[in-house]
């Protein structure tokens, strides 16, 4: 399986608002921690090493 880079979220504006709202009242450190947790939760859900490697690559692009 390869990393899906096509649009896959049904209501992108709903998702984005939830993401931003979830951090609205947090401090900078709390946000960093929450983002780290979010990445780990989603990575676990994906599971496949090959897909995670590709995601790391995409996110590391300058």
């Amino acid at each position: 399986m390869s990393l899906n880079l096509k649009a896959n979220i049904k209501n992108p504006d709903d998702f984005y608002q939830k993401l931003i709202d979830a951090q609205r009242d947090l401090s900078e450190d709390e946000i960093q921690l929450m983002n780290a947790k979010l990445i780990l939760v989603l990575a676990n859900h994906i599971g496949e090493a090959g897909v995670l490697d590709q995601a790391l690559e995409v996110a590391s692009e300058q």
Partner: protein
Amino acid sequence: MLNTYTYPEFEYQQSREQEQGVIKRHPVVIIGAGPIGLTAALECAAQGIPTVVLDDNNTVSIGSRAVCYAKRPLEVWDRLGVAAPMVEKGVSWKVGKVFFKEKLAYEFDLLPEEGHKMPAMINLQQYYLEEYMVAKCASEENVDLRWKHKLLNITQHDDHASLVIETPDGVFTMEAGWIIACDGANSDTRKMVDGEFSGQFFQDRFLIADVVMKSDFPTERWFWFDPVFHKNQSALLHKQSDDVWRIDFQLGWDADPEEAKKPENVIPLLKQMLGDDAEFELEWVSVYQFACRRMDKFRYGRVLFAGDAAHQVSPFGARGANTGVQDIDNLGWKLKLVLDGKAGLELLDTYSEERVFAADDNLLNSTRSTDFITPKSKSSRFFRDAVLRLAEKHEFARPLVNSGRLSMPTPYVQSSLNTDDGTEFAGCMKPGSNCADSPIVKDGKDGWFLNQIGGEFEVLVFGDAPATNTVSFNGINAKVTVVGRDLEDKEGLLTERFDGQQGAVYLLRPDQHVAARWREFDADAIQAAIAKATCQH
């Protein structure tokens, strides 16, 4: 500053009622001759309702202000017979480009579908739009447009309201069965009825400049996040007619609005954007703080609020004037039925119900856009920038880019006036949606579907012609139109958009919205749906 436009000066005239000192009762008085008030006057005229329109000024909008007019309001104006000069003078566009720093991040096309009379969007200076509507009002016997008439006070009674008006000749009183308040975001009418108006102010300021220049920029909406010419802020470029360009600059909350709009501060900013060699002149400059707020309800006794007086949104998405026009589209036929005694006052409360629902949709969309454009925290800024960077290369991130979700009509999917579908229909229309347009042939001539309907209830039939040509309920007549008999669906698009291949019967509201639909013609069911759509159940 340069002027590409000569402002007309409309003549003040003392009214006969003021001159004679008599108190006259008018069925409908409209407050404000801006885009929404003028649309209201034309809508009432189309419905056969005489109106008096009061405006405290005597010209059109000073400065360009609203710029983008979307397909649905253009369809409403076309029904009222005033869209043609707007479309002719306006600049049609459908492609938008979003840049992040110097790179293109995302591109969209508003109307990839052919077979609609009206373009997806036109850009036109507000003064032209108003000028065309004032001219149309002048040709309508039922519209009495009165300049230099300022509303001072309203007293509400059970079956009418009294208005105290000031003119250059002094103060006088008139009465109105109904008042349509279209006097903008700072509505005095709203204050006079103690209307509740609440929401969110954004801690940011924007500079809006109209610039005259000859340029070969394409006719597209260009939006920049964090451009090199205006670091850490956003900018927007739009073409209007007469070589006038609208440019928005985000300024941030700390900017001094008075300083920012001085030409000696605006011109260097423009030069950074357009290049040192660009030849341009300023036509109009203003600084705004945006707010997203609405009234708790749009009917206060005998006063009906429409446009910015009722709801105010940030401009990203062109949802201000466009929404206001659709308020009037919704209100006109309801007011007519109430005035004619064919429906009760509850029908006017559904104006509030349906348009509050639409206002909330607009507020949600414009708040989200504003949050994306001006992130409120460091982390939301990181997310925003991450989306923009990823969008350059990766498709998945592009739908997340939000530089304004452009005005689309809000279907009244939860409206109490709808009759629910008893069976499955394909396509994107539902009870509560506005009808899709399509090319048709009528009496051997090419035409458009939306030009065949509106103003009254209609029954649209795909399939066998029923025995009757009209379905009536309580004095409300719905004319039956049979596709294939009364009009020809030459390209098959109408049948496709209404999912009529297997036969279909639609009850359409006077505002060209779907009230109910079935697979078979059943006069009893249609009568029940008319009753429901007019609050008589």
